[in-house]
């Protein structure tokens, strides 16, 4: 269905896209990006693989259970809410910390980033779940 060029290029591109989606996720608090876009970007990467190779190929590199992804995401997002309560703050109160990491320099650590990761996982999980549903039994 697709040419060798498409296949080769997408193989090269997919890891880059995924990396980019992760960077979008973490950049989200200050720059354009965030959990939702990052998640959709990730899903697009997978769908690129699908267009180039078909579902069987994706299955062969990762036997996916996307429902688990969104379960985990939902859990993570809700736990960040309750996490704040453990420290005596109200629900979903966010925490802010500036940390100096060896390579990256000063890094902002926000508890909302965890929440965003939850969103990211949910988006990836549910989009690809639908995707799998529609693309299966071909």
């Amino acid at each position: 269905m697709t040419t060798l060029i498409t296949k080769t290029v997408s193989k090269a591109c997919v890891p880059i896209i995924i990396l980019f989606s992760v960077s979008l996720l973490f950049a989200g608090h200050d720059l354009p990006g965030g959990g939702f876009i990052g998640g959709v970007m990730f899903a697009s990467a997978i769908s690129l693989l699908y267009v180039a190779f078909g579902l069987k190929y994706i299955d062969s590199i990762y036997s996916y259970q996307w429902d688990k992804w969104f379960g985990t995401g939902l859990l993570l997002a809700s736990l960040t809410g309750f996490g704040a309560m453990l420290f005596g703050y109200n629900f979903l109160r966010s925490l802010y910390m500036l940390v100096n990491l060896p390579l990256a320099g000063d890094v902002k650590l926000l508890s909302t980033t965890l929440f965003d990761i939850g969103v990211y996982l949910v988006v990836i999980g549910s989009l690809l779940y639908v995707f799998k549903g529609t693309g299966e039994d071909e």
Partner: protein
Amino acid sequence: MAGILPAAEKVLKKRIGWYAAAIALMSLLLVAQAVPSVVNGENIQGSVPWLPSLGIELSFYGDGLSIMFGLIVSGVGILIMAYSNEYMSKREDLSRYYRQLLMFMGSMLGMVFSSNIIQLFIFWELTSITSFMLIGYWRNRPMSVYGATKSLLITASGGIFMLAGFLVLNIITGTFDIATVLQNESMIETIKGHEFFLFALVLILIGAAAKSAQGPFYIWLPNAMEAPTPVSAFLHSATMVKAGIYLVARIHPLFSGTDAWFILVSGLGIITMLAAGFLAFRQTDIKGILAYSTISQLAYMMAMYGYTTYQYPGIGVAAATFHLLNHATFKACLFLVAGIVAHETATRDITKMGGLRKDMPVTFIIGSIAALAMAGVPPLNGFLSKEMFYESSLEMGHLLGGPLEYLIPAAAVLGGVFTFAYSIRFIDGIFLGKRRSEHLPKHMHEPSLIMLVPPAFLAILVILIGLFPSVAVQYIIEPAASGILLQEVHLHVSLWHGFTAALMMTIITFIAGIALYTKYDAIAAWQDRMNARYPWFSINYAYDRIVNGAQGKSSAFAAVMQPGPVKPYLVALLLLFLVLGAIPAMLVATTLVPADLNFNVPPYEGILLGLIVLAALGTAILRKYLHAILAVSAVGYLISLVFIYLQAPDLAMTQILVETLFTIIFLLVILKIPQTFRENLTRSVLARDLLISSAVGITVLVLLLNATQGIASPFESISYYFIENSVPLARGHNMVNVILVDFRGYDTLGEIVVICLAGLGVYNLIKSRSDSK
């Protein structure tokens, strides 16, 4: 106190039953640790803000009552978990079983230590849900599923009434915190005098009655016996069903001492006690007997908690509280014995049993002790609390005077007679006499120690509390009763009071009970005749009618509301938009079209606009799916260009990505559907569609033209708040993201839940369609 919950929940993943028992032991120790301070009259409190804007906190409160429940829940929990090690076959999904049991225990503990009533409600419903899962533990048995559904429908909907009652209570008092209300006498006075008093009371009582299987709501409990027996022992005798009783005790100080309280609570209790006692007598399933007897025993407590007058608000409180503790011991023990018997004989039909005492002497002794305690035979603990029940009934009758002076004690005795009769039947039917059936396996034997020790332990407790009541009374009952009555309570409980009226009543009970038991066959035959003749004369019948009817009704409703094709929904949505958007906009409009319109469009904007219009027209006109889909995506991509042009990279990126994905998914979908497209439109339909769409189009145009001029935004924009606060409050420079995860995180949480559900829904819809092919 808050430590209990995370401690119990942290370990849900672990598998082994002993591990679960250890968790229960840990909670028991945690609760027990609080006993001394509560005995000294100090209550334990602690809270964490949760939804501060609504005044809802995660707050915990432990008084004598909570501690007593905590002890029962975790104490019986240990025994149940240990017992289950042997009872549950190793092939079962044990992880799920213990996880749910522990979850249940956690929610039960959370409930009794809740100080905030909204939190109490949440834990309350959690117990309903976990109980639903446990009753339906054997998922592929239709009766389990039926019983589970029934219990969830009844207890959870009762809970919703209760929530409404709590909200009414909140309107009256202005707080959600129980401890605050309990410590504030003027607030209690306000409640009792308030015009909504009865309203709140009835609503809350519906919840309590549904949970404790009182009145017409009892029907779920017998069906809940489909659960594994340890579950029945834990949930349906010792703990969950007592949640309703707990609630009655908890709100006792707020509502008691009024006529309404006495009539509603005691009335409900007495009627249920008699009806359930009568029905229990007739059951042939041993767990059925226990189920109905639980209902009637809980009704005792209801009746006693209802015994109040203006002068003496707590006549039955101590007796009820004592009975609550005793019932937990002997009934859990009876269930465990029933579990052993069913395990060994492979049947639960009492008519097939008999004579088991030779094969299982130890079980026989344990079971008899528990059953005799239930029957109220001295020197067991059931005797003590039953005496107190009779005493308080006499006292209540005496205080009321009139015909009630005799009616209340008489009802109490009648309830006792039934109890005595079915208790005796339990012993006689299973263990005494001769073998009645050849169906039983030949070589029955005592179960292993793991199954024997928990009921034996309970039986020993039954005897110990009976012989030496003072320990239990001093450390558990007195603090609990003080917690309910809000004053120091001192009790004198002993086996021998002399020849009191209550003792006379007990003797009458025994004689009448034996007489009733000898008439068993006649009564059973009469009940059978009644059932055969009037099948509709039962609440179960009504329940089945309603539930089955609801399925038909809802599918009829769905057929009207959801005919299938997308078009009607679209029409409805657009019309709604017109009604909700266009009409209000016109009402506040000063001018529909602003005067100073600028038609000076730069050429690249013009080209972009032209392309969008072209693509949009294409979606409407093109006659093949593939072409139409491509046109739709073209619209999407062009709009993302607009976003880029307007310097909104976030939106543009989202738009491009979503568009890409959806184009692919669309293309996947069209492979699966018939390729014929565009039904033949008649002229009138076409005209109608055109009319609606152009009306919507014009509305949007006008709204957009006015977006900056006032009619579309009569209110001040809230965006300034976010512009000003996103960096100082949330330390993020991307405002969209800050709004999503910081300011409106709760919304986002809801949204991602919706995304998950939508994903599941779409997947299953497609799956079911391709499966049915």
